[in-house]
């Protein structure tokens, strides 16, 4: 019962988003962005709901959702780490940081979220802070000139905070 209530409440949120964008199919991308902001990913049932409401085929919506790399059809972890692997970061040693973080988290290029749903680790191409390469974004905070040691330390800080909360 409780979860049904929750679901209804969340669909209210989707309806609000749809209304905010006038249910206009040319605003599919901002709609999906807002939905993703709400759920942290694009749940399948929400996608179907959005497609029906916008009067477009689910295939069209799915096509858009899978084309853009920011959209995720899989739930993401509580903390998101993004390591830049743009050119400037690459030549300044981003690979070593990527290896170190993946190693520590037990993740790979394919598996990006830890089983406990605590961390998602992604690589991105250029955050525009190339002057401070290599760059790592931990949740919202940008860190420049990151080494494997610094990255692991940042990770450790989050783990410790989480343990304190638990």
């Amino acid at each position, binding site marked *: 019962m409780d979860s049904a209530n929750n679901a209804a409440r969340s669909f209210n949120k989707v309806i609000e988003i749809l209304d905010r964008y006038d249910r206009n199919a040319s605003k599919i*991308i901002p709609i999906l962005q807002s939905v993703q902001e709400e759920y942290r990913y694009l749940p399948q049932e929400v996608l179907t709901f959005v497609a029906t409401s916008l009067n477009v085929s689910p295939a069209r919506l799915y096509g858009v959702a899978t084309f853009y790399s920011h959209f995720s059809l899989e739930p993401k972890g509580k903390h998101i780490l993004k390591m830049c692997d743009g050119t*400037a*970061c690459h030549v300044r040693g981003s690979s070593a940081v990527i290896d170190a973080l993946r190693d520590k988290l037990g993740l790979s290029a394919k598996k990006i979220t830890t089983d406990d749903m605590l961390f998602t680790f992604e690589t991105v191409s250029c955050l525009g802070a*190339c002057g401070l390469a290599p760059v790592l974004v931990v949740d919202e905070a940008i*860190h420049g000139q990151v080494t494997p040691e610094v990255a692991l330390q940042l990770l450790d800080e989050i783990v410790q905070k989480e343990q304190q909360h638990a």
Partner: protein
Amino acid sequence: MSNVVVKVGVASCGLAAGAGDVFSRVQEYISEQKLDISLVKTACIGMCFEEPIVALSGMDAGTIIMGKVTADSIIESLDDYLAGNPIRQRVILAEKGDAIHNELLANQKRIVLRNCGVINPESLPDYEATGGYTALRIALEMEREDIITTIKDSGLRGRGGAGFSTGMKWGFAFNAVGDKKYVVCNADEGDPGAFMDRSVLEGDPHSILEGMAIGAFAMGADEGYIYCRAEYPLAIKHLKIAIADAEQKGYLGNNILGTDFSFDLHIKEGAGAFVCGEETALMASIEGKRGMPTIRPPFPAESGLWGKPTNINNVETWANISWIINNGADAYKQYGTEKSTGTKVFALAGKIKNSGLIEVPMGVTIRDVIYKVGGGMKTELPFKAVQLGGPSGGCIPEALLDTIVDYDSINKTGAIMGSGGMVVMDQGTCMVDVARFFLNFTQNESCGKCTFCRIGTRRMLEILTNITEGKGKLEDITTLEQLATNIIKGSLCGLGQTAPNPVLTTLKYFRDEYLAHIEEKRCPAGVCTSLLRYEIDPEKCIGCTACARKCPVNCISGSVKQVHNIDQDLCIKCGACYSTCKFGAVKKG
């Protein structure tokens, strides 16, 4: 209120270096001490290597700009400044007297970056105080054709990469028939290693708005879009503030400055697809579709957004417009070469000392950009190559460093001017790895429409990966060259047409390095881990055990005062021993 102003650079790069803490510390200090001074935010003056950067002004000493500021050092500097004492911290620029980097700015000419790091980007009055929106006023009094002629005469070429004449493009959109026209600003800046557009958007958003309003008026458009990548949240925030302020002041919206010209401007956020920087894909994305490029013609000027005549320009192109209207085409043409006029902003990154943003007149040599403005190499290793134009560009070797910065000269090297990313590489960079890196990027970002781009780049990537893993064959080079030719011919948009460039230029200038990987199974730069070997030189090893203690997998054996040995089967090639040894006894090869 005293005239003393503390300006903290809080653009993305400053924030990454800790400018947020500096700002809060000054804020606290001002209220603790009840100081009668103002604290303002500004954006990036382009010296990322000195971030966080703070400027002090308003005292007899004039404006003083400090670099590598910390929350503690700023208080000491502020006290010094207010007391009229010399600043004991790192002064990088000074209005009066000497400073470390005064000459770096002297070698530049700032048109696009004129306000970046100088004004508060969240303040319309700041922009107006530097003469902002006067060009719009002038333009609204001009004949629309005359505006286009001025832009044509200035020789301005599109800064998004291809370098097409902006005035001519405006002319096409002007002549296109249609009841509705659009102008678009391409702020998708997807080239990894380039951040010129981000800096302008964050640091001087009104200059883009003003340029677009002038363009819209000249071409007869009444609606515009700024398509900005979502990786630039601060840029989007500043644009939103700027648009709201400009609407309120009557620089945007209905009946601009009391005329019958109306212009509405919207922001569209990208969603992470490099190909959306291509103009037809970008428009598809604005329309809410998958960002797949379409064949041109029809060009956007005839049939663009929702089938209406549309003009797309890059951020930096738009940022030049108001300067040209204010100062005239001749003033603009006095900078640069005959066919590439004006200035160009470059993002210097990689193994260069002064990484950051610079703006130089066209026509200077790449060598001068790197050594005079960029301060030369950051590492002790010598220069090897500079990468221009990102995934569509190429690597320029030492021998071609005297090439001048203009569209046509750079094209001759096989690279392209591109949008202005310049990534400097030293001898510690492997050129095969760099080629593989770019192919991996384009292969990921190919939208999949054209077979050659989709599958051809994948085959090239596989071959390059094999080579970096020591599994390459000599005939691979011929296959790479053949695939490259076919991908160039068989792709519809610029992504595929230019994707092979990084491979072709490295094959052209660094063929030896490919051969070393293939024939000798050796990576001369010591980057490709599969080919890397760490060995201990028995002549040099004194048996200090430092390396053995550092090795994370315990693969170094040997006791005190005895020559150590690395077990090659266990070694993970992390390089810890190499960087630990003080006697140069660990050899990398």
